[in-house]
C-alpha cells in the first residue's frame, strides 16, 4: 500500500513539473475539469467529446467493432513502417526481400505475419462494423454523412489491402492482381485505359509494382487517416454514438 502511495505521489510530482504542464496543459488534479481538459486540449483527443453516454460504452450495441477496426489500422501503420525499412519496390528484389525477411531479419516473419493477418482482420472488421451500424440503425439522420464517410473508408480499406497484395511479388500476388485488374477491363468504353492507368502498362510488371507501392504506402494511408479523422469528428458533431434504447418486443 505504501508502495502504491509512493508511486502515486511521485507521479503527481511529475505532473506538476513545468515540462509536463507545457505538454499536457491540464496540469495536475483529479477534478472533472482536468479530465475534460485532457481531452479538449489534446490535438488528437479533441475529436472526441469530453463526456460520453455510459450506454455507448456497453459491449452489445457496438461489439466495439469500430474500435477494433481502428486498432488493426494502428497495428498496420506500425508494422507497415517497419516493413518499409526492408522492402524495395523493384523486380525481382521485392521477392528477395520477402525471403530476407523470412530468413535473415530478426523476427521478420513475425512482422510480415502481423501485417498480413491484421490487414485481413481489418477488411473483415470494416465489413462487420458496417453491418452492425446498419442493423443498429445508426446511419439515420443526422448521421447520414458519416455513413457515407464510412462507405468511402470501406473502399479505401479494400484498395489498401488490394495494393498491398501485390507487393510480395510472388505467384499469389501476381495472379490475384492480374485477375483483379482484368475486371477493370470490363468497364465500358474506357476499361483498357483505366487498367493502363492502374498498372502503368498493359500487364502486371515492375511499373505496376511501383504504382501499387506508392499508393499503398503514401496516398491511400494518408487518405485513410484523413477520412478516419473526419469519421471520428463527425461522431462528436452528430451527437455521439447512436445507441438505441432497449425496446420491449
Amino acid at each position, binding site marked *: 500500500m505504501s508502495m502504491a502511495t509512493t508511486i502515486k505521489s511521485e507521479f503527481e510530482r511529475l505532473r506538476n513539473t513545468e515540462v509536463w504542464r507545457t505538454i499536457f496543459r491540464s496540469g495536475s488534479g*483529479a477534478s*472533472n475539469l482536468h*479530465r475534460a481538459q485532457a481531452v479538449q486540449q489534446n490535438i488528437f483527443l479533441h475529436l472526441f467529446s469530453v*463526456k460520453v*453516454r*455510459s450506454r455507448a460504452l456497453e459491449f452489445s450495441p457496438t461489439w466495439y467493432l469500430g474500435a477494433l477496426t481502428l486498432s488493426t489500422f494502428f497495428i498496420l501503420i506500425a508494422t507497415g513502417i517497419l516493413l518499409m525499412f526492408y522492402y524495395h519496390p523493384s523486380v525481382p528484389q521485392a521477392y*528477395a526481400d520477402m*525471403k*530476407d525477411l*523470412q*530468413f*535473415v531479419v*530478426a*523476427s521478420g516473419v*513475425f512482422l510480415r505475419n502481423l501485417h498480413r493477418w491484421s490487414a485481413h482482420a481489418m477488411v473483415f472488421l470494416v465489413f462487420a462494423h458496417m453491418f452492425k451500424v446498419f442493423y443498429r440503425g445508426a446511419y439515420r439522420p443526422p448521421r447520414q454523412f458519416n455513413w457515407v464517410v464510412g462507405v468511402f473508408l470501406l473502399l479505401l480499406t479494400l484498395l489498401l489491402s488490394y495494393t498491398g497484395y501485390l507487393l510480395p511479388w*510472388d505467384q499469389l500476388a501476381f495472379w490475384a492482381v492480374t485477375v483483379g485488374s482484368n475486371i477493370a477491363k470490363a468497364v465500358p468504353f474506357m476499361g483498357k485505359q483505366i487498367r493502363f492507368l492502374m498498372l502503368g502498362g498493359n500487364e502486371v510488371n515492375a511499373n505496376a509494382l511501383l504504382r501499387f507501392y506508392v499508393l499503398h504506402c503514401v496516398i491511400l494511408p494518408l487518405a485513410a487517416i484523413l477520412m478516419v479523422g473526419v469519421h471520428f469528428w463527425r461522431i462528436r458533431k452528430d451527437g455521439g454514438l447512436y445507441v438505441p434504447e432497449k425496446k420491449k418486443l
Partner: protein
Amino acid sequence: MDNNNQPGPLRSRPTLRELAYFGVVSLVLLVSLAIAPAKNYFSDWRHYQKSYLKIAGERQSGTLVRSFQGGIRQTWIAKLGVVDRCESCHVNLTGALVGATGQPFRKHPIIPHDLEQFGCAICHRGQGPATSVEEAHYTTEAWEQPLLPARYLESGCGQCHLGPLQGAPRLNEGRALLSSQGCVHCHIVAQPDGNVLKPEDNPPPLTHIAEKTSREWIYAWIRNPQSYAASATMPNFQLNEQDAADISAFLMAQSTASPTSHIEITTASTAAAPGADASTEAATLYGASFCSSCHAVQNEAGNLVGGNFGPELTRVGAKVNPDWLRRWLSNPAAYHPATRMPHYRMDPKQVALLSGFLLAKKDSDFLANAHLAPASADSVARGKKLVTETGCAACHQINGVNPPQNFAPDLTHVGSRALAQVVFAPGMKHNLPDYISAKIHDPRSFGPGLKMPKFTLGESQIDALTTALLSQTDHAASFPKELIISGGRTSNYHPGGEAGRIMDDLRCLSCHAINGNGGDMAPDLTWEGSAVQRAWLEDFLKNPNTLRPALIRRMPKFNLSPGEIKTLTDYILTAYQSPGFDAQTMDAHALNADAAARGKQLFYAKYGCQSCHIADYKNDKGYVGPALTSVGNRLTPAWTYKWLKDPSALRPATIMPNFSLKDDEARDLTAFLMTLKAKQGGGK
C-alpha cells in the same frame, strides 16, 4: 420535464475493475510480444553453430573457436543470382575441424570448382537463401525444388558442361541414352548453346518391310519386341491383339519393292551346303567377319554375347525372309541406304554359308501364337490410323505417313519444370526427380490415353536418364555465356573421291571418327596418315588384327581387293595428316642401337611401361594398352616421338599418361620401340 436542462448523472472515476482489466491485458500483450524475438533466438542455425563450437572445444581446437565468426554466413554471387546461406549451418565445409563427420558438419568432398565460385544450390538444389532446416532442404509452398538426392547430383554439372565430362559417368551415360534409346526422335532436347541432341539408334525404314519379314513376325514383334530379342531398343507400346493385327496389315500393305528385289539370287548362294563341315565353316566365317563386334546372340545360359551396335540375332531365322537375307549380306546399303552395316565383299558361297548359319537361329515358339486373319481393307485403314496416332513414323520411315511434328513434350527445360504443370500419378511424391524417374520407368502408369511406350531400362539407366534430364534447367540461360562449355559437335565430314566411295561402302564412319564425324567404337583416324607406316596399313586392311588383346570388338575382314587397298592406303596417308607434322622430322641417325638400348632401360626400369603394354610376349603381362610387339612396323618414328612427349595432344581422350619425358628420353624410347618388329599377331 425539468430535467431536460439538467445534465444526467456523471461517473467520473474509472472503476477498479476497469483498471484491473487494463493491467492484465497489458501484461498479456507484453508477454506475447516477447515470444517472437525468443523464437528468433532459438533458430536452427544458432543451434548448429553452438554445437559446432562445443565439438571444437571438446577437441581442444582453441584457435578454431577463437577465429570462429558467428552469425548468418552467405555466398552472394550477383551475376549468377546466387544467395546461398547453407554455410550458416554447414560451417565445416572446408574441413577445418577434422573428424566432425555428422551433418551438418561434414567436409565437402574435393570438386574441380571452388565452393565460393558457384555457391551450393546451383548443383544441390534446395532453397539457398533459407536458414532453417525445413525450408532449405524440403519442398515448401514457396519452394518446389528440394535438395537433389545424391544419385542425381551430376545433373548440376550438366547445366554448363554440355558434352561428355570426365568424372560424371552417370550424366554422360544418360545423355548417350537419350540418343541411343531414340528418346530424341519424339522429344526435343536442346542445350543452352543451341545444340539439339540427335538420335543414334538408326531405326530401319519400313518402306520395303514385306520383303524382309512376314506379317506374323511384325505382329508378334510390335506386341512385345523384347520377347523376340531381349536387347531390343524398340519399346513396348502395349498394343492389344486387334491393334497389332491392324498395324501389321497396314505395314505390309504400304510396303513397296526395294531396288534389291531385282537382283538375281545366284544358285550358288541359295544352295546351302549341308553337313557338319559346312556348319563349322559358317561359324568360322561368322567369327572371322567379326559379326559379334556389333551383333549379339544369346548363349545357352541366357547371356548376350556380342556388341549392341546392330540388332540382336538370337532368333533372326524366325524373322527374315531367306532371299532378303542373302541380298542384304551381299549389299546392305542397297536395301537400307542409311544402314551402319558395312558392305562385306562376300562371294556367293560365303553368302550361302552365312545366311544358312543365321537362318538356323530361331525358336519355334516365337511365332506360335501369331495366327492372323487375312488383312481386310478396313484393317489396313485402321492400321494406318493407329500408325499415325502411335507416332511410328517419328522413328521409322513409312510410306504414306509423314513424321509427326512436336509429337511429344519438349524436354529442353524439363529440369526446372514448375510442379504446378506436372500431373502426378496418385500416391507418388510430389517432386521433380521422382516424377521424371517414374515417367521413364512406367509412362503408362500416369493414366489412360498416354502415348509414351514402355522402354526396357535397368535401374541405373533410369537414374542416368533422370540425371541427364534434370540437367536441362533454365538456369543456364541466365548464366554468363563464358560459363557454358559446349560439347564436341559432330561435323558433317565425309571423305571424297574414289577412296571416299569405298570408305562409305565399308561404313568406316560407323566405328571410326574422322575430322569430328563418326562413331567412337574404334580409334579416331583423323591423323592416321601421320601415325602409321604404309606397309603396315596395307597389311592391316588386307587382314585386320587387333592391337589390343583384351578387346572383344575387332575390325572385321572386308575381303578388299588389292586395288581397293591401294586406293585406301594412298588416301589415308595423304589426307589424314596431322598439321605441322613431317614424317621426316625424326633424324634417322638418332635412332641407333645405343639409343635403343637406353630406351629399353627407360621402358622397363624407369617408366615401367610393361605394366600396361606388352613389348615381349614372353615376359610382359600388360593388357591395358595396345601390344607393342610390332610397333616398329606400325607407327612412324615421328608420331611415336610426339606421342610419347604428350599423348593427349594427339588423342584428347587417351588414358595414356603424360610422363613429361625429356627430349632425349623420348628419342631413346622411340628408338627402342622402332626395334620391335615381331610378326603381326605373333605370340600365339
